[in-house]
């Protein structure tokens, strides 16, 4: 009898611990640090991927509504995963600026002609320095940038997910 009570008690404790840890797994660890909110340096110049023409990046941003900036590369597997979400954003008339990170122009153009081009403009970043100016640490990364105040509203490290997409849609609406 006592043995059974011990056994059931232990079992119950285990199940409770299991459930709590299971819940703990689902708490999102979103490290997008609010304190990192900073401004984009609009004095940067960059070369366009398709026309080789050098432009000032401030020309790429829409002054009245927020833009999405996406750092990608053709060799980056997670970029391929998030590509469909960028296409969805494009279909909602979002201004998406691409930064092509450490890539060959040929591969990059192939990637876009194969999967579709979600970007209103792509600038090249052969040595990775431009991405660093934006505070990126890898590919892919996505920034929501206000055109009015050139502030970074939100930063996503790693490939976008469908939840991120919903959040981005809301952010874009809120910040018009």
């Amino acid at each position: 009898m006592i043995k059974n009570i011990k056994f059931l008690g232990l079992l119950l404790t285990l199940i409770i611990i299991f459930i709590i840890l299971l819940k703990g797994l689902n708490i999102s660890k979103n490290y997008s640090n609010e304190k990192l909110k900073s401004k984009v340096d609009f004095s940067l110049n960059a070369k366009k991927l398709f026309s080789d023409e050098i432009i000032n990046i401030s020309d790429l941003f829409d002054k009245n509504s927020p833009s999405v900036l996406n750092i990608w590369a053709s060799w980056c597997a997670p970029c391929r995963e998030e590509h469909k979400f960028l296409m969805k954003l494009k279909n909602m008339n979002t201004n998406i600026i691409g930064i092509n990170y450490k890539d060959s122009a040929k591969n990059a153009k192939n990637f876009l002609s194969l999967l579709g081009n979600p970007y209103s403009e792509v600038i090249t970043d052969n040595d990775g320095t431009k991405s660093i100016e934006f505070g990126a640490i890898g590919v892919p990364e996505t920034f929501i940038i206000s055109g009015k105040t050139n502030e970074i509203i939100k930063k996503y490290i790693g490939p976008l997910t469908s939840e991120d997409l919903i959040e981005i849609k809301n952010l874009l609406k809120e910040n018009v």
Partner: protein
Amino acid sequence: MSNYLGNYSLYIALIASVYLIFKSYLDANSENKYLDKNFVLITSIQTIMITVSFFSLVAAFVISDFSNETVFNNSHTLKPLFYKVSGTWGNHEGSLLLWLLVLSIFLFIFLLNSRSQDTKYKLLTILFQQIIISGFLVFILLTSNPFKTLYPIPSEGLGLNPILQDPALAIHPPILYLGYVGTSIIFSASLASMISGNIGDKWARHIKKWVLISWVFLTIGILLGSIWAYYELGWGGFWFWDPVENVSLMPWFCLTALLHTVIVLQKRNSFQEWTIILSITTFSLSMSGTFLVRSGILNSIHTFANDPSRGLYILSFLFILILMSILIFFFNQNKISNTVKENFILSKETAILVNNWFMMFFLSVVLVGTIYPIFLEVLNGSKISVGSPFYHNLLIPFLIPFLIFMSFGPSLKWIKDKLKKFNYNILIIFFVSLLISYVILTKTENSFLLSIPLIVLSIYLLLVTIKDFFVSKSSISQKISHFGFSLLITSILLNGLFSNEFNSNMKVGDERIFNEKVVKLKEVNVTDVDNYKSLKASFEVTNKNSSFALYPEVRIYQQPLTITSEADIKTTLFSDNFLVFNIIKDDGYYNVRYQYKPLMIWIWISTIFISLGGLLSVIRKNDQKY
């Protein structure tokens, strides 16, 4: 090529594992007297396959084969060869493959080393060990395959986390894993002995070797991690109560308790159930360690992988194993024959039991501090951070009774001891330690009431353990380990009592006066080294009549962009001088932290003594015939 080789050998190993599970289950139920030769054969094939798989990953890292996703994410052509190789286990996928490799090698060694054991017991050990191995194999193949390919093949990798580019850290995970995985053998063997009903002195002698080996590796593994944190992280301490440090400490407490209990089982054929419970708990804690680190459930500098599906798998696997062991424990409890009639208060058995109580107390404190924040966040969404004050306040006062027990417990006799006649030696030692403590305590200003008994007792214990080398009849390995432990406690206490530091913003040419020392920042040189940019500062510390230079460094890595601080540490037998600096902004000022830490090196040396004792015991046991 190596991708396919590595991947398919894992599948072959999985087939071998499934075969062994069924075969050992069937054979254990039939009354076969001898172990089928196929077991050793299939196990060796499995071990070879996993070895092939592991080395094909190493090869991919060495030749920088970026068609492999793991290599691409964690390596770089510019990295030195040594770190390319260590990069193999510096990431989630590779480290699991290493776990698996050690698991299978240990089972293989176990099979070779347990010829004299009962066949059913061996079969059941194989069964449980293969359940663990297959669990890890499926985990690797489903959620963390290290052989995923990339196309088109990138021309350059993303680099290893630069704070992992350190020799101590490169060998720290493998050593720690040897300890963790060793506990899996103890787990499987204790479940097997529970079912086959052979728990007793003979089994204790046999399993003690594994307990010792795991314990030695775990101790050295923790030591290396601590050394890495001290030299590389530049936080100026050796233990931070970081959750990931804690998960390696918890199995250590449990294993230390088991190490002592198994001796009672061997000598007195008692504490059977307790030994089994400790074996199961030790392994569960090691596995939970893997879960907590690899699932990203903890917020820590160590959590590199962050994938809930992985966490879900390890969590379920862990709980299936625990559930299985609880079922086995409860349904086979009646097979344990408790032969001991009476326990006397004054005996070695009781002393070891007291040691176990203390270990369990320390374990519970660390366990609560580590996982309570997770529980709280789930239950009511509040975030708390448990830091060193919690652990210090709960652990340190209990060191006082612990030290008292440790000073006389080990010299008690088995079964029943008498209160001896008044021992003048002990009294002399006690007064000597009082005297030494008085001298020490007059030199410090912050003398809390608590620190007086702590210092007195730790020095007393140190002297007693030294005395034991000449007087006591206990084994040399025990003497060395206990001496090492008392040295560790003494060094930690004195280190804590006498450490001091200053923190200041300085620019080139500045001087700061601190505790009769002058610290001067002479210059900062910027150079480009292999894969990072280096800012090397030159400091001069002038004492009353001597001076020395310190050269801390800040490294700026490009791949990925990371800034690390390399502290410069001047180590002598008596103290460490620790200096680290950081870039603040581009205005010429640097943040400088200077620390004076007495007896730092003795913390490492004493831990080496502790593990040396265990190592000696392993070697000695191999010579013994039984």
